[in-house]
C-alpha cells in the first residue's frame, strides 16, 4: 500500500447526493410517476386479535375507477405468506387477523381518493378473540395463542436453527453457555440480580414504507421500493410469485431514512400482488401512522445476574431475555439470538449462561431497529456495571477498564478476536467529558460501553468499470438511506484508481444491474460493500498495470497509478491511452470485480462477525426535582471505527444515533391499552426535536486502521445509539441516587423515584 497521503479517503468530503437533496430534485419512491400507475389503499383490522369470518370485496371491485380489490382468500394464485425467519405473515389476513392494523383487504384504483372510497365498500365479518398484548400475558400458562399452525421456514431456510416451543407463543429460544455460571455466582463476592425493561418504539423514518410495482411479459416483475435490502425483497417476491430471481427487478431510489424499518419485505408483496391483478403499475405508499402498524423495535424484559469478585473482576453473567416480537416474527428470532449471544458486552466473562426467547403477541410485528437487539441488553448490563461499581466502592470507568476484553482477544473460543481498543475509547470519552474533574453540583455524569457483532456469514459483491475517458462507474447494492454510503463507496474507488471524486459515479441499487449485496444494515456497508468496491477497483488497477507493463516492457512493480495515469519513472500514460493500447481503438472498458464472502465458521452462531462495533458514551445530565424532567446537557460518543473514510458523514451519523437513542431513553414508547395502540401518529408519539438534543454533543473516533474493511475501516453507525440509555441513567443515579430500570425515563418515572427516595 502506498504511504502517500490519501487523496479521498479520510477526508470530510460533502456528500455526492447533497446537491440533489438541497434543491429538492432527489426522487424518492413516492415521487415516482409511472405511466398508467394506479394507487393502492389498505383496509386494516381494527382488532388486536380476531377471526376473520368473511371479507366481501364485491362492491369495492365494482366501484367506478377501481382496478383491483383483494382479500386474503383471493390470493390462491400465489404463495400468500412471507417472512425472513418464518413464512408466518400473510400479505392480507387469512382467517385470523393478529394485530390492530394488520392488512385485511386492499384496493388499487385510478387515484387515491377513489381507492379510499372503495375501502368503505368492503365488508368484513370479524369475530374478536382474546388478545395477548404483553410478554406476561403471552407467556402465562394457557395464554391465547397468536399462531397455532406449523411454522414454515423463511428465506434463511434453516428452520433447524429456529427453535419454537410447541404449544406456546415462544417462536424461538436461544441458549448459550460457557463454563459453570451457577458455581461462579455461588463463589462471587457480589451478586446482583435485577430486571430491566425496554419499550416498544418505532423507527419514524420520515419517509414511510412505499413501493411501486409493475409486471411485464418480457421483464417480469419490477418494484421500485424503499427498502434497505433489495436482494432480500427479491427472494421473497420470487418465492411468492414462483418467478425466477432474474425476472424480478428491485430498484431503490433515494431512501428517506431506514434505521432497520426497511429491512426485509414490507409493502412490496402487496404492491406486487395488486399490480398483477390490476394489470397496471401500482403505487402503495404507507402513511407514517401505517408505519406504526408495519414494524417496530422488539421490546424486552431482561433479567440479569452478574457476579463480581471483591477486586472488581467480573466472574459470571446469567441473562434471561424475553423479547416481544409482535404478531409476526419478521427478523425477530435473529435479533434475539444475535443480540443475546453478545449479552456480556465488551467484557471478559469466564462463566456465562445466556437464554432468550422471542415471543409472539398481538401487537405490531417487531423487527430490526438500529442496534438489532443489543440496546435492550446493554441497557441492563451497563446499568448493572454502575450498580456494581457503587457496591464495590469502585469508579465506574475503572471497573469497566478492568474487565474489558483486550485487543486481539477472542470474544468467545473460535470467534472473531476483538479488533478495537476499548480502553482507548473509554479513555477518550472520560477525558472529553471531564470525568476526573469536579463538575457542577447540579450535574451528574455517567458512562456506558457497548459491543455489537455484524451479520455473519454475509456476502457483498461489486463491479467497477473504467471508461475510456478515465471516468469510473461503481456498481454495488448498498442502499443510500442517509448514512452516506454512496459517497464513501465513491471515495474508495477514487482512492484506489487515483481519480477525482467528480469522475466517479455510484449507481443506485437495482437488482437487474448492481450485483448482490446481502443487506444495508448491521453497520456493514463500509466494511463489506466498501471492501468489495476496493477489491474491484484493485482488479481494475491490476489490469491497467499489466497492459502498461506489457506495452512498455517494464515490470508491473515499477508502475503506479497517479492522478488518472499509469506512471513509471520517465513515462506517464493516461488511462485513455492505456485503454487505447488495450483495445486498439477508442472504446471498450476495463471491468473489475470484487467479492467479499467470509462464509461459515465454527463460531457458536455459525459465522464470525467481520468486525466488532465498539463504542463508549458519556452523558452529563441535570434534573428538575420538582417535575422530574431529565435533561442531557452534554454527551460524548467515542466509536472505534478503525478508519473514518469520511469523518464528516460519520460524525453526522453518530450524532443522529445519539439523538435517536435519546428518544427511547427519555420519552419514546408505543403505548397500548385495551388492545389498541394509543399513540400511533406523530401527534401523540414524540420523537426528539432540535431542542431535545444535548446542547453539547461531541462524536469522536478512535482510528487505529485495525479493521478488516477498506483502509482498516470497521463498521459504524449503531454504536453511538446503544450506550445512550445506560449512560444517561447512570448519570441520573450518580446525581440523585435514584436507579431506574424501566425505559423511557419519563418525568413521571423520575419524579416518582425521587419522591420514593425522599428529599435530601
Amino acid at each position: 500500500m502506498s504511504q502517500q497521503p490519501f487523496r479521498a479517503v479520510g477526508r470530510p468530503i460533502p456528500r455526492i447526493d447533497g446537491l440533489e437533496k438541497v434543491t429538492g430534485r432527489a426522487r424518492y419512491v413516492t415521487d415516482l410517476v409511472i405511466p398508467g400507475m394506479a394507487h393502492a389503499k389498505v383496509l386494516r383490522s381494527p382488532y388486536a386479535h380476531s377471526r376473520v369470518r368473511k371479507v366481501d370485496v364485491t362492491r369495492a371491485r365494482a366501484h367506478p375507477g377501481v382496478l383491483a380489490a383483494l382479500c386474503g382468500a383471493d390470493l390462491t394464485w400465489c404463495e400468500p405468506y412471507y417472512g425472513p425467519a418464518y413464512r408466518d405473515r400473510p400479505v392480507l389476513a387469512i382467517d385470523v387477523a393478529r394485530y390492530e392494523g394488520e392488512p385485511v383487504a386492499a384496493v388499487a384504483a385510478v387515484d387515491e381518493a377513489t381507492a379510499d372510497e372503495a375501502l368503505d365498500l368492503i365488508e368484513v365479518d370479524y369475530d374478536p378473540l382474546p388478545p395477548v398484548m404483553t410478554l406476561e400475558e403471552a407467556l402465562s400458562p394457557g395464554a391465547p395463542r397468536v399462531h397455532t399452525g406449523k411454522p414454515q421456514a423463511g428465506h434463511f431456510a434453516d428452520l433447524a436453527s429456529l427453535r419454537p416451543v410447541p404449544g406456546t407463543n415462544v417462536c424461538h429460544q436461544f441458549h448459550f453457555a460457557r463454563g459453570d455460571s451457577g458455581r461462579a455466582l455461588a463463589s462471587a463476592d457480589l451478586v446482583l440480580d435485577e430486571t430491566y425493561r425496554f419499550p416498544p418504539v418505532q423507527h419514524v423514518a420520515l419517509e414511510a414504507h412505499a413501493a411501486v410495482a409493475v409486471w411485464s411479459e418480457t421483464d417480469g416483475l419490477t418494484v421500485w421500493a424503499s427498502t434497505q435490502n433489495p436482494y432480500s425483497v427479491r427472494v421473497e417476491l420470487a418465492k411468492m410469485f414462483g418467478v425466477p430471481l432474474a425476472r424480478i427487478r428491485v430498484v431503490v431510489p433515494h431512501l428517506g431514512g431506514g434505521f432497520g424499518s426497511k429491512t426485509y419485505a414490507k409493502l412490496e408483496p402487496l404492491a406486487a400482488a395488486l399490480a398483477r391483478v390490476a394489470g397496471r403499475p401500482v403505487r402503495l405508499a404507507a402513511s407514517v401512522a401505517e408505519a406504526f402498524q408495519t414494524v417496530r423495535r422488539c421490546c424486552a424484559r431482561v433479567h440479569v445476574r452478574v457476579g463480581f469478585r471483591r477486586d472488581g473482576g467480573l466472574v459470571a453473567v446469567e441473562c434471561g431475555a424475553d423479547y416481544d416480537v409482535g404478531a409476526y416474527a419478521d427478523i425477530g428470532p435473529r435479533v434475539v439470538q444475535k443480540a443475546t449471544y453478545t449479552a456480556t458486552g465488551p467484557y471478559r466473562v469466564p462463566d456465562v449462561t445466556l437464554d432468550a426467547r422471542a415471543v409472539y403477541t398481538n401487537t405490531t410485528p417487531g423487527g430490526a431497529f438500529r442496534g438489532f437487539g443489543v440496546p435492550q441488553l446493554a441497557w441492563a448490563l451497563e446499568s448493572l456495571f454502575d450498580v456494581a461499581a457503587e457496591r464495590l466502592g469502585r469508579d465506574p470507568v475503572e471497573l469497566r477498564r478492568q474487565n474489558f476484553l483486550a485487543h486481539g482477544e477472542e470474544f468467545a473460543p473460535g470467534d472473531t478476536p476483538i479488533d478495537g481498543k476499548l480502553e482507548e475509547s473509554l479513555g477518550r470519552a472520560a477525558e472529553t467529558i471531564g470525568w476526573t474533574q469536579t463538575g457542577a453540583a447540579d450535574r451528574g455524569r455517567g458512562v456506558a460501553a457497548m459491543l455489537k457483532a455484524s451479520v455473519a456469514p454475509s456476502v457483498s459483491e461489486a463491479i467497477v468499470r473504467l471508461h475510456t475517458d478515465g471516468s469510473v462507474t461503481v456498481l454495488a447494492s448498498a442502499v443510500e438511506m442517509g448514512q452516506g454510503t454512496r459517497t464513501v463507496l465513491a471515495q474508495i474507488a477514487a482512492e484506489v484508481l487515483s481519480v477525482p471524486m467528480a469522475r466517479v459515479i455510484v449507481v443506485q441499487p437495482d437488482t437487474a444491474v448492481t450485483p448482490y449485496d446481502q443487506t444495508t444494515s448491521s453497520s456493514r456497508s463500509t466494511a463489506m460493500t466498501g471492501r468489495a468496491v476496493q477489491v474491484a477497483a484493485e482488479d481494475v488497477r491490476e489490469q491497467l498495470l499489466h497492459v502498461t507493463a506489457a506495452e512498455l516492457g517494464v515490470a508491473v512493480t515499477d508502475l503506479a497509478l497517479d492522478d488518472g495515469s499509469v506512471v513509471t519513472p520517465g513515462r506517464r500514460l493516461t488511462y485513455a491511452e492505456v485503454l487505447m493500447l488495450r483495445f486498439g481503438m477508442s472504446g471498450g472498458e476495463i471491468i473489475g470485480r470484487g467479492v467479499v464472502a467470509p462464509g461459515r465458521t465454527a463460531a457458536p452462531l455459525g459465522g464470525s462477525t467481520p468486525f466488532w462495533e465498539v463504542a463508549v458514551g458519556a452523558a452529563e445530565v441535570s434534573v428538575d426535582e420538582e417535575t422530574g424532567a431529565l435533561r442531557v446537557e452534554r454527551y460524548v460518543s467515542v466509536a472505534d471505527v478503525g478508519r473514518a473514510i469520511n469523518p464528516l458523514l460519520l460524525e453526522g451519523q453518530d450524532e443522529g444515533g445519539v439523538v435517536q437513542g435519546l428518544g427511547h431513553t427519555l420519552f419514546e414508547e408505543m403505548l397500548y391499552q385495551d388492545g389498541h395502540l394509543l399513540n400511533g401518529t406523530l401527534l401523540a408519539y414524540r420523537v426528539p426535536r432540535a431542542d431535545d438534543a444535548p446542547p453539547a454533543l461531541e462524536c469522536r473516533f478512535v482510528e487505529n486502521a485495525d479493521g478488516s474493511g477498506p483502509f482498516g475501516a470497521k463498521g459504524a453507525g449503531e454504536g453511538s445509539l446503544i450506550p445512550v440509555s445506560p449512560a444517561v441513567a447512570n448519570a441520573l443515579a450518580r446525581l440523585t441516587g435514584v436507579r431506574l430500570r424501566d425505559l423511557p425515563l419519563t418525568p413521571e418515572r423520575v419524579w416518582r423515584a425521587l419522591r420514593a427516595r425522599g428529599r435530601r
Partner: protein
Amino acid sequence: MDGARSPETIHLVVNGRACDLEVAPHALLLDVLRDVLDLKGAKRSCDTQVCGACTVLIDGMAVSACTYLAVEADGRAVLTVEGLAEGETLHPLQRAFLDAGAVQCGFCTSGMLLTARAMLAETTAPSRQEVLHYLRGSLCRCTGYRKIVEAIMAVAETAR
C-alpha cells in the same frame, strides 16, 4: 356535497411564476404542488402538521402544505425548495447545509431550508435558542440536528 366538489380557479405565484389552476375546494396545497405542478421537493410525512417535511412559504410565512388548502393560497406567492436557488446559484442556506453535513436522507431537508429561510427573513441574527425554538416544527430523524443548527447559525453569522 356535490356542490362542494366543483373545482375553483385559483391564482398562484409559485417560485416566481404566475399560474392559474383549477382545484377542488378540499384539495391540499401539498397535493397540488406535488401532483399538479410536479414540484416534488415538499414531502408528505406525518399528515398532521408535526414534522415539517412539507413546509413551504406562503407570502414568506412557513406553512405545512399537508394541512393547508390550496384555495387558501389563492392570490398568494408560494415558495418551494425548487425556487430557493437563483438559477444555478445556491441560496446561502443550501450551501451551508451542504458544507456543514446537515443533509442525510434528505427527506426533511426541503422543509428545514424553507423554515430557516422564513426565520432569517423575520430575524436576521437569531440566537441559538431562537433557532432551536423555530425548529420545533421540523423533525429530522437522521442528523441529531447539531449540523442543521450549525448550518443555520453560519448563515445567520454571515448576515450579521
